[in-house]
């Protein structure tokens, strides 16, 4: 069962599309400023794709995914600092933990719909922030955790930023591939059915809660892996960074929203529009008028919300349809 024909051709299309996103890296690999921006772009593209599984396709507008991101970051950093466990392995327990706590905390929240669900999940983020400050034996409290620079593949610490860009690209590709496989399977259709009409899904005999919980687990685990990578990349993590709403928690949703919620390429498009623009504006305007870049970004998002209700992917889709109609 598939709306998109299940052929190698479409797979090649997706793979080709992902490879195109490597082009800027090839061009800009000598410029550390831009490589850093690209690293964040790939990372947040992956995170927005992960969020989109339950937030977009599942219709559960979560603003609490920052918690999973933070759990992944702390778990990996703590295992590495305390027991010298390679972050490559250290990502796994964090992801498993999130696949467990995600469904547990979302379960009671699924009774709420729409904005009420979003507000309740926003509260998870705040609870997470308080707990991270409090549980200092694990998180280092307000001082956070610092990971010393000891370059090596096993340590996931690299002197060459381009390697990081490739790792983040790999994370994005993994999230996209998982989403494609999920959405072309029977399971993806159950998820869509639940989003579109919960009552009809009930009547069709779909176990609505199980479908939501399973995809929450998947989405949370991927967000956790993103957090692990983030921690090893910046090597200094503290509660205000990890639980920042503007930079982490709400951003996953925002990127997906701008790019096109509930589509496969939307979150990737969104990340490639927002992250570079935001970083560039911050660098250019930050010196003269600090905070001005936020005003500009806010304005752009407002316009996008007003004029592109289905995001960039939706707008492109509409444009494509109009052109193919006038051509025929």
């Amino acid at each position, binding site marked *: 069962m598939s709306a998109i024909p299940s052929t190698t051709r479409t797979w090649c299309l997706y793979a080709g599309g992902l490879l195109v996103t490597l082009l800027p890296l090839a061009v800009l690999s000598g410029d550390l400023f831009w490589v850093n921006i690209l690293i964040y772009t790939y990372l947040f593209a992956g995170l927005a794709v992960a969020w989109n599984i339950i937030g977009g396709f599942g219709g559960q507008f979560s603003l609490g995914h920052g918690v999973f991101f933070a759990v992944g970051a702390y778990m990996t950093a703590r295992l590495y600092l305390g027991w010298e466990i390679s972050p490559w392995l250290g990502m796994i327990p964090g992801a498993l933990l999130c696949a467990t706590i995600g469904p547990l905390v979302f379960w009671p929240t699924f009774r709420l719909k729409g904005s009420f669900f979003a507000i309740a999940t926003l509260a998870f983020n705040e609870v997470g922030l308080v707990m991270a400050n409090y549980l200092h034996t694990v998180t280092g409290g307000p001082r956070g955790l610092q990971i010393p620079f000891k370059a090596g593949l096993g340590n996931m610490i690299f002197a060459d930023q381009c390697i990081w860009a490739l790792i983040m690209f790999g994370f994005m590709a993994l999230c996209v591939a998982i989403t494609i496989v999920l959405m072309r399977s029977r399971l993806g259709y159950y998820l869509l059915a639940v989003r579109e009409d919960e009552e*009809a899904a*009930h*009547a069709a*005999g779909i176990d609505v809660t199980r479908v939501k919980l399973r995809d929450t687990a998947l989405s949370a685990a991927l967000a956790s892996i993103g957090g692990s990578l983030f921690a090893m990349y910046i090597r200094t993590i503290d509660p205000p960074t990890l639980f920042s709403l503007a930079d982490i928690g709400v951003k996953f949703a925002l990127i997906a929203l701008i790019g096109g919620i509930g589509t496969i390429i939307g979150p990737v498009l969104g990340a490639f529009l927002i992250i570079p623009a935001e970083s560039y504006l911050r660098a250019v305007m930050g010196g003269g008028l600090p905070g001005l870049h936020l005003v500009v970004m806010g304005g752009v998002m407002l316009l996008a919300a007003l004029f592109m209700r289905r995001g960039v992917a939706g707008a492109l889709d509409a444009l494509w349809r109009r052109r193919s109609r006038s051509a025929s």
Partner: protein
Amino acid sequence: MSRLLEVLGMSAGYGLAPVLHDIGLYVDSGEVVAVIGANGVGKTTLLRTIAGIIQPSAGRIAFDGRPIGSTPAHDIVGQGLALVPEGGRLFPFMTVLENLELGAFNPSSREKTRTTLDEVMMLFPILAERKTQLAGSLSGGERQMCAIARALMSRPRLLMLDEPSAGLSPVMVERVFDMLRSVVASRNVTVLLVEQHVEDAPEIAQRAYVIERGRIVKTGSGAELMNDPDVQRAYMGL
């Protein structure tokens, strides 16, 4: 004949608003039973409660002798009780085929998806023709048939229909009921349907219940109710 569905002293509602009071009814296997009532008397709530979408606040619901009052909706479908919600509630952006396949969620029917699909397509040739079309593009009658077909995909023993005639032209109503008759005959299913149109229901149903303000007030064979002066006054405007 064995008793397939039995509801005893059941009450149900939404939160603090009770809708149904002390409902008692039964459906024997092989029967077609109708529940007739005006708008807002609790017909839909009755079906939703039996289907497990909402929990009864009192009383007992037994399906094939087993209590299902607190069984979750998807398990009830798994046991062989399927609901066709009012208006069909198809997934409009999915194709007809995808809608049908979604009906076979529970493990026992999933194994037989292909065979059931073939059987259902035989019953509804129009759906076979339109299987790659989006469900949202179907006409009202086709939509209703697709919804019935989707319910059949779970291989139910009891099919419950919420106002299958709602929003359809009289010709289409006739066609849907014809379809339903052939479904009953060929697939060995029992049917419980609720209807507002008292004149339609007895045509297909052997027995009927009349529901008023959340209570069952009358019961009898279809013809008896048709000729009942109270019913005629209340529902047929005679």
